[in-house]
């Protein structure tokens, strides 16, 4: 083969150019820490990297969501535990007061304790997390539990044997404190003949003189009346509680948080299900108000009935707490899974996209050597000429 000058020099140039390009690429990958600097460097790997990065971003986001879920569940759990504590305290009070050894004054003092506990329960039920009322369903901007206006409750009857007396409460309360009126038949007989007296302090002091029973007869001076019916026996009693019932203002929607692909976790408890505020036997606020009234009425039997209801509620709240615990556990497990996944993804991304420094440094040294060798041999070839010998 004839070797001409253009051949020699173009080969030298091209080879040096290739080597310096190689050096530049290796250097670039070392200094940037990234294997690829353009999508055309390795479209398949770059595409895979994009997928891995997306997965990793998503896992990070789910972990953030889990934090929110955890906050919600934890704050709900602590709120319901607090309520459980209140229920237990009230149960103790109710249990003591259900025994006959306490007198009216002591029970009224007990009633005050229960009232405080009731207020505490309302406040706890209105727990606010980051400006959101956690028990309100979707209506997180409004308190779930509010006191409504004073309401005259239905009479709680305690009749003597043989009595057929009936009573209904009515009127419009104009007082400003909660109160329980105890009505006692002084002289028996049919309605209209029988007389009654009432007490505002659980029977410690009584109104005098007795008033004839009838329709819408005033009980006390604050707008409460009672409509009597049937035939009464002396010693028949009933009490008319007046208090501000707690009503639920939220809705019954469950707040869900995305914690994985197509996986959601309910993080809130609907206040009306968990605590009440809608009346009925599972409404803790109603149970406590009734307990309080029974104590005000110095009625150990009713106090015992309230204790029964408190125990039922305690079971209910324990079940709810168990459910929350399970959810929190799920959050923890999910978090662990995501930690592992995140680790694997990071490794994968690093393996695919990050420069292997050992490999790159090796390649750099090899290429450097090749470049130096090429420079040396090129100089040798370039310097040789017949001219030097002429």
């Amino acid at each position, binding site marked *: *083969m*004839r*070797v*001409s*000058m*253009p*051949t020699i020099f*173009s*080969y030298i140039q*091209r080879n040096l150019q290739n080597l310096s390009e190689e050096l530049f690429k290796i250097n670039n990958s070392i200094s940037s820490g*990234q294997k*690829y*600097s*353009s*999508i*055309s*460097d*390795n*479209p*398949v790997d*770059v*595409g895979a*990297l*994009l*997928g891995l*990065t*997306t997965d990793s*971003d*998503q896992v*990070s*986001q*789910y972990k*953030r*969501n889990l934090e*929110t879920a955890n906050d919600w569940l934890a704050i709900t759990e602590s709120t319901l535990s607090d309520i459980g504590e209140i229920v237990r305290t009230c149960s103790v009070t109710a249990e003591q007061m259900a025994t006959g050894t306490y007198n009216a004054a002591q029970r009224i003092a007990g009633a005050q304790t229960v009232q405080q506990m009731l207020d505490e329960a309302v406040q706890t039920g209105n727990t606010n997390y*980051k*400006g*959101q009322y956690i028990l*309100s*369903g*979707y*209506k*997180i*901007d409004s308190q779930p539990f509010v006191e409504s206006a004073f309401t005259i409750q239905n009479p709680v009857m305690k009749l003597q044997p043989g009595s057929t007396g009936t009573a209904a409460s009515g009127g419009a309360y104009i007082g400003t404190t909660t109160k329980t009126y105890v009505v006692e038949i002084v002289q028996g007989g049919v309605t209209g003949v029988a007389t009654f007296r009432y007490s505002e302090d659980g029977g410690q002091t009584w109104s005098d003189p007795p008033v004839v029973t009838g329709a819408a007869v005033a009980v006390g001076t604050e707008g409460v009346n009672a409509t009597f019916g049937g035939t009464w026996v002396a010693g028949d009693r009933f009490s008319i509680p007046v208090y501000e019932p707690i009503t639920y203002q939220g*809705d019954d*929607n469950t*707040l*869900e*948080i*995305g914690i994985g*692909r*197509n996986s*959601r976790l309910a993080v809130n408890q609907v206040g009306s299900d968990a605590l009440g505020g809608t009346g009925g036997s599972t409404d803790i606020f109603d149970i406590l108000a009734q307990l309080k009234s029974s104590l005000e009425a110095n009625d150990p039997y009713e106090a015992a009935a309230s204790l029964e209801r408190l125990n039922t509620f305690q079971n209910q709240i324990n079940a709810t707490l168990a459910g929350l615990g399970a959810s929190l556990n799920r959050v923890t497990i999910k978090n662990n899974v995501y930690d592992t996944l995140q680790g694997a993804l990071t490794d994968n991304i690093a393996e695919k*996209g990050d420069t292997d420094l050992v490999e790159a440094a090796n390649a750099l040294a090899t290429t450097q050597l090749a470049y130096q060798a090429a420079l040396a041999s090129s100089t040798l070839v370039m310097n040789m*000429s*017949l*001219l030097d010998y*002429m």
Partner: protein
Amino acid sequence: MSGITSVLDIAAQAMAAEQVGVEVTSHNIANVNTPGYSRQVVNYETAYPELAPWGPMGRGVRVLNIERNFDRFIQARLDEKTATMAEYQAKSDQLEQVATFFNETQDDGLNAQLAEFWAAWNDLADNPQGAAERLALIRRAENLNDAFNSRADQLAQARQSVTQEIAPILEEVNTRAARIAQLTEEIQESEDGTQVNNDLRDKRQTEITEIEKLVGVSYYTTGDGTVNVIFPNGLPLVTGVTSFTLDYTISPTDTVDVTWNGPGGLVEHISSSLDGGKLTGLIEVRDTIIPQFQADFDNLAKEFIAAINSQHSQGVGLDLFTSVTGTYAVNDPTDPLNATDLPFGAEITNGTFQIFVDRNGAPHSNATITVDPTDTLDDLVNAINLSAVGADLTASVVNNQLNIVANAGTDSFGFAADTSNVLMALGVNTFFTGDSAYTLGINDTVADSPNMIAAGQIDVTTGLHPVGDNQNALALSDLENSAVITVGTDTLTVTDAFRRLISDLGLEAEQSATQAKFYQDQVNQFQAMRDDVSGVSLDEELTNLIKYQRAYQAAARLVGVADEMYQTLLSTKE
């Protein structure tokens, strides 16, 4: 007639011949770096012998001709590969440029912006009434818009800059073609049929090679020294001493229409038959590759908009509308909705949607509107005005867009349960505007008032919409993992569709670069083969120089010898 004179004669001829050798050698040395130069050699032959009594006698040397070392087959292969290499090189250069717009190997690429966008929806679902989350979502959506818009813009600009390269290329082809014709004329004038004008032929060959880099042609040389340069479809660029010109226009379908201007005003369209050369590569990039990529990117953006808007229009923000105007306009409010150039008109199906009116923040009235895709916008307006909310709201057509206004200052309204997609198609209660990567934008309604971002949904049984409702935000964040983009026969998630786009672009760029490199290697090989024949070797020339110099010296000595012979002869006379 032999004699001393004859010796002198031979010596003189030899000196002249060797001098030609030295001259040609110096010409070679001088042109060692001239591109396209073919090494020349002097062909010597013995002079015609003279008849002598003792038989024909040699009469020394004569220069037969000066020949260039040139292999036209190798040159033809070299030119052919050069054309192909130039085509791929142009493609590769342009695609590498386009690939940098979509360089997802760097931080903050579109993929990252998409992830941020979805994350923002998740954050909003975690805290649906959060003002910070809402603002963050708008900012991230803006970033995403910028990412889509700027890339679409860069694609259009890349196309524009390719277009600007076409005219100079055609001008260069025309100039070089004219030069070839002129050189042919000069060659014909300077050659006598037996000797060739080496240097002019080299020059002409160089012009052809330069044309090959711009546009693929083939050529053949005829016996009389003319060359015909023709396009792959047979149309001539140069025939003999005549050259033709190329021109271009942008066709109505926005493609480059290269025209060949033949004799007598004859015009042929040759874009489709071009093969090889930078021009072919550029036209392919401009008219096929970039438009295809633009179409894919626009399709991605359009289906992304449809998916987000369709879900967003089901929901309700923290605040309700007091008035709303659709972002998409129909051509004519009396045309059926599915046939009036609405970008998403085809998505409308038979179905219903509900409107809820609040008075002083409490549910007041509501209506269910039935939609048929063949309804006109006027029909829809009438249906709303005649419905149960007609007394509280007024629907109308403003600038061919749907407009709904609450009649009383105490009223506001929202939408729910759209099974017809008509709200999305008209741009009512939507998040994005536009229908392509370039026009993608955020609906002013939500951009100006992030409270209008529909994180919740109206409870269709009660008409309530509490602020803690995150159903719609959850559904929107779920779209990240939903297959909503149709690519060919596949349905992919937004991220996967974008990833496929990037891989396709990367592969195309990589393939062009590989091909360019492959053909570059081939060109190098053929170039080496050509230089093997035609390239100047200085060592060889220096050897030749000495060879000719020594021969010249020897011939000069002959003169001396002849002189001595004359002197010897003359001295015998004394």
